[in-house]
């Protein structure tokens, strides 16, 4: 359809000086160009790279099919990294969701201190992660850290937190929970405010005397869509863990805290094995896409709950 036909077919109070189509493309042009250059082409290039043995500084490269992916399977570093990422997500997701839900319920149960406590719990979300990681490093320091000083006073042992391979992932997950809690809390608070007050009154009439019964009968089912949404979004955020690992452990000790993005960073930008790094990136992308797919599937089903 030509521009003229389009504008004639759809009568409008005022015509555009330039045809509507031309105007629309002109207005979108900067975004489209930036999209092609910074998003689409690089993404396609990453996909292509994953099937090559390209290394920065090497003179040429060859197409090696699925060799990079085959290498991953026998690469102890990568497999550890994949396992660690799954464990990290598995710890941070339930931890930050349960904590956020409990705190949101506590905040919503009264009128005092709402804004104040919301601000306190949200603070880590706006804080410079690298700087806060340094603060955590001091807090968790085996010999001079305040946490172990407290444990010593209480007569408990002094774990090495970030420098022992048995506790490092746990410590990073604790920091991850601390980082994500406030974000989830705000989402839960929004979900809670949306529950109609009459439902609680009705539940009480029906004999739900205790707070727990009201939670089970009203809050939990009404909060279902919010919870599922928070679940997937936390998983997607957690799988991107990078900053704390890069600052605190560099994947150590002995690869005990290697995670996907950090392994990808090391392979690509420390060893300059770009082909292999691109293949790891694709694994990362596949995981993120799977989670997003899950999100749309689950949300489509449950969104009409209330």
């Amino acid at each position: 359809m030509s521009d003229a036909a389009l504008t004639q077919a759809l009568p409008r109070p005022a015509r555009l000086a330039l045809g509507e189509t031309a105007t629309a493309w002109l207005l979108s042009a900067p975004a489209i160009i930036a999209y092609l250059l910074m998003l689409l082409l690089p993404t396609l290039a990453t996909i292509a790279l994953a099937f090559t043995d390209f290394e920065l500084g090497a003179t040429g490269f060859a197409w090696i099919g699925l060799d990079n992916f085959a290498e991953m399977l026998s690469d102890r570093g990568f497999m550890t990294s994949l396992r660690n990422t799954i464990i990290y997500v598995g710890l941070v997701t339930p931890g930050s969701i349960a904590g956020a839900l409990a705190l949101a319920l506590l905040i919503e149960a009264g009128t005092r201190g709402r804004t104040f406590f919301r601000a306190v719990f949200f603070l880590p979300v706006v804080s410079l992660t690298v700087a806060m990681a340094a603060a955590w490093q001091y807090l968790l320091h085996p010999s001079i850290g305040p946490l172990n000083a407290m444990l010593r006073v209480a007569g408990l042992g002094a774990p090495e937190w970030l420098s022992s391979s048995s506790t490092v992932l746990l410590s990073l997950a604790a920091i991850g929970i601390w980082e994500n809690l406030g974000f989830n809390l705000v989402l839960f608070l929004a979900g809670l405010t949306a529950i109609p007050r009459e439902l609680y009154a009705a539940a009480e009439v029906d004999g739900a005397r205790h707070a727990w019964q009201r939670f089970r009968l009203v809050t939990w089912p009404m909060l279902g869509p919010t919870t599922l949404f928070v679940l997937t979004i936390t998983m997607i955020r957690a799988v991107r863990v990078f900053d704390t690992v890069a600052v605190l452990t560099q994947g150590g000790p002995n690869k005990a805290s290697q995670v996907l993005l950090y392994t990808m960073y090391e392979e690509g930008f420390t060893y300059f094995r770009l082909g292999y790094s691109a293949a790891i990136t694709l694994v990362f992308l596949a995981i993120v896409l799977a989670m997003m797919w899950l999100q749309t599937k689950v949300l489509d089903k449950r969104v009409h709950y209330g």
Partner: protein
Amino acid sequence: MAERATPLYRDTPRLLLLALAGLIMLMPYIWMVAASMKPLDEIFRASLTLLPERFHAIENYGKVFARIPVGLYLWNGLVVCGGILFFQLLFAVPAGYALAKLRFPGKEFVFGAVMLGLLVPPHVQALPLYVAFSQMGLLNSYTALIAPFTISVFAIFLFRQFFKSLPDDLIHAARLDGFSEMAIVWRVVLPNAWPAATAFSIFSVVAHWNDLFWPLIVVNGQDYATPALGVMYFRSAEAGDDFGALMAAAVIMTAPLVIAFLLAQRRFVEGIATTGLKG
């Protein structure tokens, strides 16, 4: 759930629980600030007193300012965040308007591309972009720090949704008044979409002020280091075990956003929690 105001004595257990949780949450901040004011020997004694016996803040903070170009890092952070936000708005607002209010062939295709872009985390483009910037000799530059983020498909999506809810009459009236489409975008539509623009701006600035991944890849050395990189350099090169000075550096670099957050708390929460859903 509280219909009437609960008396304070019945509210106390709830408030105490929240206060305890809040205290745990604030632990890193409390000890960070405390250590930034202590001399090294007090820190190494690992005592549990928060207040320093000898006030050492001037020495610690002085050391940070003497050893690293704090002002330069903060300035770089400002330029990078400001530059990114400027281009994001410049590109996304007109595109969002076209998608929301104009009819044109190919619109579904463009919108589909936007939705597709939403699925891809920014880490995926890092390798080819790094190679490209390196080939062009653009590593260590504001260009390398800003350019990859000039396109925000999320901003296009957000503005499209918001512009759609604006009445068509507003735009028709502006056209009758002889406004060009460009003028309509910037002088009619955008001022009416202020909540969306503020929310997105806060989201964007927080994300890029705190970003470590991309600056770590393209920047080497002090000249273009952002605050995140600054803390990292100071930690690995200068401070080592000098936790007093390191905590002082952490306080300085964290302060700007935290202060902004405390001043405009509601807007921050809305901006990040409603727009940050992108994850």
